[in-house]
């Protein structure tokens, strides 16, 4: 396999889209193409990550449509769906295309425009990820599955609603520094949990999870350009190497897992990614984890190997995951504040990590300028997870 590098990144504003899904994707792709200074070099293939275009935007064959809109013919075009992990899946496909030698320059673009439908329809659509007859028919949503998980986790490990709120407060504070973030609100423990108006500011979604424990429904697009390492040096001043990719799957129905508080697929994906990279969790200086729900940031930080099982919330308490801590988690604001355009999120995590490793993250740059970064992109409710390790330079 050839070494593969990220040679350009781009992203739209997250939030409510001002444009069509395709136009958003063009904007992000254009930014990535400009960033890579491709010049006249052709893009060989386009890998698009999206979850809901057929249902929410009346479009199929989205990658072909993007190739058309950007006049990239005859580039190959593929659309990949892996629920909330579609982004990392499309990235993996692009990686395989370049690593195999089949393609040289690849565009990976994630895009989602959920807000073309109303919130109820968006929630219903995302619940299609649950097990058709053992979960979905009971009316469970993704927040519902997260809530069932959270209660078990909290009761077993002593995680409290204060800990969950600390994740939200940290990530919202980071999001305030990211001008492309969806939510740019400062929140406080008093405002969302301990004060007299907390229950109005922060109502129940699915007990024990409240509004601020859940990410928003966002529109947005992110894109990146992949090239083989030898070409990367030509195209880019600051290439970022794809050091490791790991993936794991788990039972579809959450209740079928022997211990439903274990995120086995996160553990397997992380181990594989570290193994491929020849690195350990101790080498990582920044992580973008999949905090669709606050509890997930804590649980993933443990399953990935950064903290012992059941102790992630203690590291959080100690401030270790703050932007100037030992292991900054979600300096971009994470899904919580940057936003969660479902199928796009994995691409956006890798764009953020690239910026950190290049030292280009601006106001939310991790001060230690880490050499290695890590992402978890969490599909379904943890039944298909991809972890990635990126390293500075090629």
């Amino acid at each position, binding site marked *: 396999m050839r070494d593969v590098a990220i040679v350009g990144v781009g992203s739209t504003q997250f939030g409510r889209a001002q444009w069509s899904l395709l136009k958003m994707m063009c904007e992000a792709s254009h930014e990535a193409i400009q960033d890579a200074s491709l010049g006249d070099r052709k893009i060989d293939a386009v890998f698009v990550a999206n979850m809901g275009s057929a249902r929410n935007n009346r479009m199929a064959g989205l990658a072909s449509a993007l190739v058309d809109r950007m006049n990239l013919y005859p580039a190959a075009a593929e659309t990949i769906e892996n629920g909330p992990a579609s982004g990392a899946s499309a990235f993996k496909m692009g990686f395989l295309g370049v690593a195999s030698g089949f393609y040289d320059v690849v565009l990976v673009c994630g895009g989602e425009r959920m807000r073309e439908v109303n919130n109820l329809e968006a929630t219903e659509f995302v619940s299609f990820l649950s097990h058709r*007859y053992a979960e979905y*028919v009971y*009316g*469970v949503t993704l927040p519902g599955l997260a809530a069932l998980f959270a209660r078990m986790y909290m009761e077993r490990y002593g995680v409290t609603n204060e800990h969950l709120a600390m994740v939200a407060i940290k990530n919202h504070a980071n999001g305030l520094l990211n001008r492309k973030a969806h939510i740019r609100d400062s929140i406080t423990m008093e405002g969302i949990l301990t004060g007299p108006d907390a229950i109005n500011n922060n109502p129940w979604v699915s007990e024990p999870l409240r509004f601020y424990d859940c990410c928003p429904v966002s529109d947005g697009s992110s894109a990146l350009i992949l090239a083989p390492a030898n070409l990367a040096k030509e195209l880019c001043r600051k290439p970022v190497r794809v050091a490791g990719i790991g993936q794991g799957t788990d039972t579809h129905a959450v209740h079928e897992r022997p211990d439903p508080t274990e995120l086995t697929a996160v553990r397997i994906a992380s181990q594989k990614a570290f193994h491929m990279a020849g690195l350990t969790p101790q080498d990582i200086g920044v992580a973008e984890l999949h905090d669709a729900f606050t509890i997930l940031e804590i649980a993933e930080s443990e399953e990935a190997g950064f903290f012992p099982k059941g102790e992630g919330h203690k590291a959080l308490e100690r401030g270790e995951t703050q932007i100037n801590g030992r292991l900054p988690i979600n300096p971009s604001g994470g899904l919580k504040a940057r936003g969660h355009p479902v199928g796009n999120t994995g691409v956006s995590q890798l764009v953020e990590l690239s910026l950190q490793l290049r030292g280009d993250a601006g106001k939310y740059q991790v001060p230690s300028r880490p050499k290695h970064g890590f992402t978890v992109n969490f599909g379904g409710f943890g039944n298909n997870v991809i972890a990635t390790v990126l390293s500075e330079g090629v």
Partner: protein
Amino acid sequence: MARNIEAAKCVQCGKLHYPTHFYCPSCKGTKFQGVAIEGEGTLVTWTRSHVLPLDYSTMYITLGIVQMDMGVKVMGQLDVGTPQTGMRLRSRIGKVREIQGSDIKGLVFTAI
């Protein structure tokens, strides 16, 4: 009388599982017997969901994961005022959802 919700028992090795798999999780067998999911169990975790899919007109639903005494864990709706992890429950078959005008039956639990 509502149709049962069934777990699958492997004809070859006897392993019980739910929901259905094409291959037995223990021995990769492909022949199974249906075993009704019924009787009593223990509540493993629960939630009261206030944001619901389109088809519901109630304010919330209460959902739980239950370890059944007959051997499998299941998701079900709880018809329980104040659920508590570890409480004992009894299952019945009831309406759990309406999809495009049809009633869907599933597991509903009440306190013992």
